[in-house]
């Protein structure tokens, strides 16, 4: 017998033995009975339901509902229109067009979320490299008109930093923008002088 076969035999289930003892039947009936007793007891408990329009509880900060576009601590738009959220979106409800502004910053010329399609999965927030797109706990945004569920950038943009209060992508990216040139960002050396061989 080779080792594989031995292993195989070890895995073989024990032959069926339906009525091993009377006590097992007793146990089964007891378990069944306990189940019925438990559910029956529930009949007389006060329901734990929180009735929504009458009572609105505060949702945790990380609840996933209405999506916003936040700003960095300097008050600039965080979104660089990198298309990662639209790529991550399983229902393809995010669309945008990236562009370059006068300061050399990449931004969204237009940014659109179709909340009629959104499933609030939060993958966009997870994909966002700049903490721009964030889900908020505001879940009450139901509309009668389907087209009004399409939110444009001006509807999405808020004037705070949301959950991430500190991150500022362009301070780290190493991209030349209006206020900082190459080598002036966080943890960067001055640009190399290629005309010199001195290190």
């Amino acid at each position, binding site marked *: 017998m080779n080792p594989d076969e031995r292993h195989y035999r070890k895995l073989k289930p024990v032959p069926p033995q339906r009525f091993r003892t009377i006590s097992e039947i007793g146990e089964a009936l007891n378990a*069944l009975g306990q*189940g*019925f007793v*438990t*559910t*029956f007891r*529930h*009949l007389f*408990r*006060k*329901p*734990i*339901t929180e*009735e929504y329009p009458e009572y609105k509880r505060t949702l945790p900060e990380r609840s996933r509902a209405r999506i916003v576009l936040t700003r960095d601590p300097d008050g600039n738009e965080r979104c660089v229109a990198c298309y990662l959220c639209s790529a991550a979106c399983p229902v393809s409800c995010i669309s945008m067009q990236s562009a370059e502004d006068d300061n050399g910053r990449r931004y969204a010329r237009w940014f659109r979320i179709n909340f009629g399609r959104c499933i609030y999965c939060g993958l966009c927030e997870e994909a966002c490299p700049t903490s721009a797109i964030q889900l908020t706990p505001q879940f009450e945004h139901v509309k009668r008109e389907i087209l009004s569920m399409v939110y444009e950038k001006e509807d999405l943009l808020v004037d705070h930093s949301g959950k991430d209060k500190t991150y500022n992508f362009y301070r780290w990216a190493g991209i030349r923008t209006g206020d900082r040139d190459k080598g002036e960002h966080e943890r960067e050396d001055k640009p190399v002088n290629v005309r010199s061989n001195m290190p």
Partner: protein
Amino acid sequence: MIAWIAGFAVLLVKIGLVLGVLLFLAAYLVWAERKLLGRLQIRYGPNRAGIFGLLQPIADAIKMMTKEDIVPEAADRTIFLLAPAVVAVTAMLMAAVVPFGPTITLWGRQVPMVVTDLNVGLLFVFAMSSLGVYGVALGGWASNSKFALLGGIRGAAQMISYELALGLSIVPVVMLAGSLSLVDIVDAQASYPFILVQPVAFVIFVVSAMAESKRIPFDLPEAENELGAGYHTEYSGMRFGMFFIGEYVHMQVLGALIAVFFLGGWRGPLLPGPLWLLIKIIVVALVMIWVRGTLPRLRYDQLMALGWKVLIPAALANIVITGAVVLL
């Protein structure tokens, strides 16, 4: 001729009465089920439409009536449209042979409190019940959807399997009563209900009845988390509603049959016969809801094993034992 017309009129009244009660009760059983299930799960259940959500069935009816009746493009149209009616009609027809009270005398004429007293009433019930399988199987097939087809096949297999157990469990009762007529069976329980002498048959019948009406823990044909909604996945609007009416009427009829075979039918102290029957039906229905709230769904092989390897042998054994006892 006048007598014939009067008889016919009485028949119509009885049919109307039975159907009215059945359908009204079906609607409110849905409400009761949702409500009770809610409470069993420490929720409220429907509580928005009217006080205690009592108008919920009406709201549901309006909703289902006004919804679009969608027929899938690839469906077999005729059969697709016919299938829900088969389910609803066979379920309702079964109620025709259930006696709901003692024979009363009206203007000097004996009027039995049953729509029709067939001498093969029990067989009629099984005939209708076996025709009900077509609704499920054809509905599932005609939808031309894999979920529906699987649901339909499962439903058909389950229903014909449990019909056997259902039928065999009743044989001792027939042996005791000596008749296939439901009226006679009720009359045979004048002194004591058969549940006292046939507890095994009672258990087998109740379990099989639940499987027959495709209720949890035997709702494999419509197991939501495997098959969408099973054989009625593709149905919408009132056709979907007909499947539901069928199911709840079926539930009531099976409750009535349990009452007739084991609980003495309409017999009971103090209250009038029909009321007793109604109470028994409702109690059986509530117990079924309770079971739904407690037990998890079986796996399909467990379902089949239970039917073929436990219930049927037990029913056969019960027949032999009862036969022996009766003979002695």
